[in-house]
């Protein structure tokens, strides 16, 4: 069975034996999970043995495209990079922008699966069907930016490069993978998985093509969809402001965390908001096949970055007690170069600041210390000095030094920068997300705060709300479409699938794919021993009321949280313990 849009080919790379083979894509799985997120999780569910050490050669690193990759479907340039997470022990599918997904597809592959581990540091060069293992001893230890620059110099700027920094090499479980310098597969230590395989970089160029039915006619239809749907005002704000726009929305809504989530406002937020940052904008850039172009290329006197995104601004700004925009941009630049996830790295230092201030353990850094903030990032990536401790992340630090009352994580993944006490559904979204606390799985503030369509300070209806948001994102990310096409609908997704594959898809089928993806991810985690006990809310959100801002006085009672969990499990047909019944697993 084949379907247009796909290459019907997987490149399988055995790093231990230094060999590469190709095989057909499992189209029976693609019919049910489409591509990217969903199909990557299905492959890992089928191929990974339960209980493996995520940093051992037994783990696999999957680069998964989708049927729309390499076509002009707007916002379809994202690549799923997936593995079992060394930070959480759960499944971990990351989504990275840039141009690498397109190059993989043009090289003739839907997916690349890395198995085993190299004995010495290396990188992989892929030019269409030609796969070469290269020595990376000169690149090992170098920052991700220097590694990418060296490889781009050698091969040319039309090659896509995915690389890790020292954090990935040193198996720091908050290490990311970079591409195009400033795009990341950020979370869950995906860069440490690549580092454990001693794979410094993947360099790829494809010269082939992607076929779809009635290409002339369908390209015209896609162009119309781009112009009439994607490029409407509800989406194009992302070109003008990038995600800096969320800073004001979150500040107004009382969900902008400050000082390690001890409160949710910052009176100084206008010192580092979009107006200030974008004054330093010198260019715009998007991903391959993007229509919107969210990337802001900024240059301060001593700091350069494409970004910073909302998450990085919030974590290194108000949540760290820092209000210097150049320090925030420098934080972003150093974290990218070191190959550290800005969210987890920032959160961990913020936690250490509070531990120090409260006298629980002295990490030598207090809120607002922007000089040490930057120094500590490098120490963490290299596991040197205090960085050896901080590289453990929030959860393991609490096991070592205490501080559980203000440790913000789920399953060992640090909290993103949306404060749930002002958006109760977000506490549920973080709790049930397939990889620990992630804001990309079900974006509750959109309903509870920005659109204000659902009351934020109640448990009522939140199970269904988080389910609906989760199903939608699960199918959207399985189509490899970016979050910033905010006006996307099920109807549109079905239409796009029909245009690309040539077989008729329906809205109902899209919803079924989304639900199936939520279930297969849960099934993976369930097999690893996760259940209700792991779907947690941090103590701070239950015990301490916010003192200021739009949600002042709010905290989330434990009973309300448990109620939300009950509702969510019920909508999915899972039992009270959050377990998927066997007969449902069999149908996946």
């Amino acid at each position, binding site marked *: 069975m084949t379907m247009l849009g796909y290459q019907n080919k997987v490149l399988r790379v055995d790093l231990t034996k230094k060999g590469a083979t190709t095989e057909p894509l499992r189209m029976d799985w693609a019919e049910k999970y489409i591509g990217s997120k969903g199909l990557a999780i299905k492959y890992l569910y089928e191929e990974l043995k339960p209980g493996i050490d995520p940093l051992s050669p037994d783990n696999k690193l999957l680069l998964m495209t989708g049927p729309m990759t390499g076509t002009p479907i707007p916002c379809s340039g994202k690549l799923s990079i997936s593995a079992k997470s060394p930070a959480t022990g759960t499944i971990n599918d990351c989504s990275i922008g840039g141009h690498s997904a397109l190059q993989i597809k043009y090289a003739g592959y839907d997916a690349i699966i890395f198995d085993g581990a190299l004995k010495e540091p290396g990188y992989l060069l892929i030019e269409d069907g030609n796969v070469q293992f290269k020595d990376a001893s000169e690149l090992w230890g170098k920052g991700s930016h220097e590694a990418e620059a060296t490889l781009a110099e050698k091969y040319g*700027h039309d090659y896509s490069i995915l690389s890790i920094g020292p954090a990935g090499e040193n198996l720091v479980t908050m290490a990311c993978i970079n591409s195009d310098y400033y795009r990341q597969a950020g979370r869950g230590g995906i860069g440490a998985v690549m580092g454990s395989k001693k794979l410094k970089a993947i360099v790829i160029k494809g*010269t082939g*093509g992607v076929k779809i039915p009635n290409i002339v006619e369908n390209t015209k239809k896609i162009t119309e969809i781009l112009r009439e749907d994607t490029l409407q005002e509800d989406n194009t704000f992302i070109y003008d402001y990038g995600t800096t726009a969320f800073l004001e929305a979150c500040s107004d809504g009382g969900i902008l965390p400050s000082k390690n989530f001890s409160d949710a406002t910052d009176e100084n937020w206008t010192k580092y908001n979009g107006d200030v940052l974008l004054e330093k904008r010198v*260019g715009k850039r*998007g991903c391959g096949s993007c229509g919107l*172009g969210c990337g802001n290329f900024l240059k301060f006197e001593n700091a350069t970055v494409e970004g910073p995104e909302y998450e990085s601004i919030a974590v290194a700004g108000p949540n760290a007690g820092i209000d210097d925009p150049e320090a925030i941009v420098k934080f972003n630049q150093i974290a990218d170069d070191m190959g550290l996830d800005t969210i987890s790295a920032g959160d961990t230092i913020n936690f250490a600041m509070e531990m120090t201030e409260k006298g629980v353990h002295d990490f030598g850094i207090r809120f607002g210390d922007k000089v040490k903030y930057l120094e500590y990032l490098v120490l963490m990536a290299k596991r040197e000095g205090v960085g050896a401790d901080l590289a453990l992340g929030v959860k393991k630090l609490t096991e070592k030094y205490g501080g559980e009352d203000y440790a913000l994580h789920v399953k060992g993944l640090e909290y993103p920068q949306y404060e749930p006490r002002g958006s109760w559904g977000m506490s549920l979204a973080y709790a049930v997300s397939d990889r620990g606390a992630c804001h990309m799985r079900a974006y509750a503030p959109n309903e509870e705060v920005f659109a204000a369509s659902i009351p934020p300070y109640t448990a009522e209806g939140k199970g269904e709300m988080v389910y609906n948001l989760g199903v939608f994102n699960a199918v959207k990310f399985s189509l490899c479409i970016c979050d910033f096409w905010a006006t996307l609908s099920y109807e549109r997704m079905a239409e796009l699938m029909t245009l690309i594959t040539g077989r008729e898809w329906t809205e109902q089928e899209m919803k079924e794919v989304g639900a199936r993806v939520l279930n297969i991810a849960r099934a993976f985690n369930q097999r690893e021993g996760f259940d209700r006990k792991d779907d947690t809310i941090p103590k701070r959100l239950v015990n301490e009321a916010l003192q200021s801002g739009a949600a002042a006085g709010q905290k989330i009672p434990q009973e309300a949280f448990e109620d939300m969990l009950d509702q969510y499990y019920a909508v999915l047909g899972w039992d009270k313990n959050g377990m998927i019944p066997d007969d449902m697993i069999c149908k996946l």
Partner: protein
Amino acid sequence: MKRLKFAKSKCIGCQLCAQACSAMHEGEYIPSKARINIESYYDKGGELKYKDSFCILCGICKKQCPVGAITLEEHIVVDHTICIGCGVCERACPKKVIRIRDEKSYICDTCDGDPACVKICPQNALTFE
């Protein structure tokens, strides 16, 4: 005569232009065979640079063609029954946009005056005027 114009300050490097071009001329999305090649990249991470290969209808290819295979009225037409694939046009092209494939020259024909690349360019960095 209308020509393609490119404003790099508006370009986001999405390469939709090359995808649309190859769809119209090659029957698949294959930027390596597109008759336009516009992209941006970060040079060493520190400078945003642009590659802007597109036909400006300068006519140098026509003047240089040793066998008279190229004509230029409203747009370029390469007569493949005459073209010998010698590559003189490719080497002479100031925008480095001509490709020789299977001993034939492939040059932008502005989609007969209605260029698909312009229609799809999401930020209107490409215009035809």
